């Protein structure tokens, strides 16, 4: 036996445990391993000796607390009888009935949410005293946080935003699971893991060593708190709900473990499914990891297009507030995410080598407004109103940065984004298909 075989055995066994003949032979021949065994034995002995005796005052206080606490109900089954499986079956039956009921009630609301988007999601109202508080749909709230990533220049700040998005996803999963929609909750797991793994852990691993340690410590501490909250909440939840949420808690714990143990280690790649929220999550992760202004502008343009598509989808529903909110986010992404980053890229490129890329990104971002305009042109009057308002707000965002920029000329931009005086008359090109009126 060699030292590298013996050491794991020594580390895993207690000093008082019997050793194999092979290991004993190695220990008697190897002074280093013999010394390690003595050190380990001394260590365990000292640790055991540090245990504290009971504190009488505490015990009397505990007795008072117990007097005040409710007496536990005796178990309904005979004590010690092997009826666990029966109880589990009953619980499952109850959970199944409650889930089925909840699904029936909430099916309408959620059918368009994760099931292909055939129906738009709507915001909820939550009673709060004499007034009511509107709760924005989850995808809108998530979009808001993701837009922040497009214009946060500092990486630690972006990592905090990613963490906040992961928290938001987990809260939504808890809400869905406790409403009986455990399957919908589980669909958020891929997104959650993507945000924690490639989103947080991988990017912390890529930070320079001194900064990495501090950020890892801070995020790990926060994740431990999240883990504790979930554990506490789970105590009051039915078994089916706990089972649905356990993978979320596990991914929080694993990320915290990694950050505490070896923050430089890169986590395994997580591949989320295909869907609107998944696509947004991928964009969020890439926006958080990218520092180069030109790339950030490009990703922001992608985000603008995704937000525009979501705005069109939500505009079909009754939720005007959500459309307005998304328009604000879109405006911020165009102004700050695309605009500011392009200005920054242009400032670092005095020779104009990036002009072609800048122009291409600008054109891409303009497509988001084009999408809104095109859909507004063919939409019902009520929907059109919301889309036109969204396009107007977003156009202001696009226009603002265009006014500030000192980059390449405006030629080639869609007509609504060109400076006054450079418009091309209808019929002479430049008008996007959705804007052209049939005579």
């Amino acid at each position, binding site marked *: 036996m060699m030292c590298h075989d013996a050491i794991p055995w020594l580390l895993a066994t207690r000093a008082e445990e019997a050793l194999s003949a092979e290991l004993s032979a190695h220990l008697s021949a190897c002074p280093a391993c013999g010394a390690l065994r003595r050190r380990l034995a001394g260590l365990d002995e000292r640790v055991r000796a*540090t*245990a*504290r005796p*009971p504190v009488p005052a*505490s*015990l009397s206080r505990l007795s008072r607390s117990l007097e005040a606490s409710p007496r536990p109900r005796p178990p309904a089954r005979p004590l010690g009888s092997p009826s666990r499986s029966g109880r589990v079956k009953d619980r499952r039956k109850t959970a199944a009935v409650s889930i089925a009921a909840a699904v029936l009630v909430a099916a309408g609301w959620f059918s368009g949410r994760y099931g292909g988007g055939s129906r738009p999601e709507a915001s909820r109202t939550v009673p709060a005293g004499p007034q009511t508080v509107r709760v924005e749909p989850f995808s809108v709230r998530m979009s808001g946080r993701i837009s922040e990533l497009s214009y946060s220049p500092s990486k630690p700040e972006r990592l905090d935003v990613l963490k906040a998005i992961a928290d938001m996803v987990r809260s939504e999963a808890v809400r869905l699971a406790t409403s009986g929609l455990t399957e919908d909750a589980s669909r958020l797991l891929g997104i959650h893991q993507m945000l924690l793994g490639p989103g947080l852990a991988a990017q912390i691993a890529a930070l320079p060593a001194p900064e990495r340690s501090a950020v890892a410590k801070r995020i790990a501490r926060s994740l431990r*708190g999240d*883990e504790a909250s979930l554990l506490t909440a789970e105590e009051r939840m039915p078994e089916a709900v706990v089972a649905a949420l356990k993978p979320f808690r596990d991914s929080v714990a694993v990320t915290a473990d990694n950050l505490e143990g070896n923050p430089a280690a890169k986590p395994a790649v997580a591949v989320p499914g295909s869907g609107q929220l998944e696509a947004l999550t991928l964009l969020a992760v890439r926006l958080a990891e990218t520092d180069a202004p030109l790339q950030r502008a490009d990703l922001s343009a992608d985000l603008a297009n995704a937000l525009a598509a979501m705005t069109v989808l939500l505009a079909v529903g009754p939720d005007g507030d959500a459309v307005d909110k998304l328009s604000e986010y879109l405006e911020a992404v165009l102004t700050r995410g695309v605009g500011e980053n392009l200005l920054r890229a242009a400032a670092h490129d005095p020779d104009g080598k990036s002009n072609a890329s800048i122009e291409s990104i600008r054109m891409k971002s303009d497509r988001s407004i084009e999408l809104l305009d095109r859909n507004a042109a063919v939409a019902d009057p009520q929907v059109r109103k919301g889309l036109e308002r969204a396009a107007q707000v977003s156009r202001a965002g696009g226009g603002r940065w265009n006014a500030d920029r000192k980059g390449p000329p405006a030629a080639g931009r869609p007509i609504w984004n060109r400076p006054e005086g450079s418009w091309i008359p209808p019929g002479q090109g430049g008008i996007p298909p959705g804007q052209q009126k049939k005579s």
Partner: protein
Amino acid sequence: MTADEVSNWVRLAQSGDRAAYSALIGRYWQPVHGWLSGLSGDEHWAEDLTQNTFVRAWQALPSLDSVESFRVWLFRIARNEWLTGKRTKFPRTGIHKIDEPVVCKPGPLGDAIDREADGALRDAIRRLAEPYQVAYLLWTHEAMPYSAVASVLDISEETARWRVCEARRRLASELKPLLEPPSP
């Protein structure tokens, strides 16, 4: 107290017998308190957490399915208390230190060295990352097998073993001068 006696006390306590539960508190107060104390490094806070653990265990006792797994179940509650307490009270360093009576008994040099060694040991344990700390203290203080450590912490047995080994490796290396008397 034998395992059978513990199971008997647990059954009685489940039916609401406070005297039986007191016996269980007497049996498990020190292990739970010692473990939480090692984790928190704060005696007073550990005391609060231990109390909460026993109160919560009393309330949840009817839901315990297997009386034989009482110890693991109790430590799971203690772990939850620790995680929850840490979130709400963290950081607690120094809060209770002000009122803490300082015992400065004049004694032989050996006592002073022991006290210093204990302090170094506690500091080294506290410097371990929490997952290692938690697993290692369960393994040493409570002499739990890896399977029980895994159950308390809701991790696989392999992970439990790895965490304990890693903690021992780090401590043995860091505390080498303390654990290995200088050769004459």
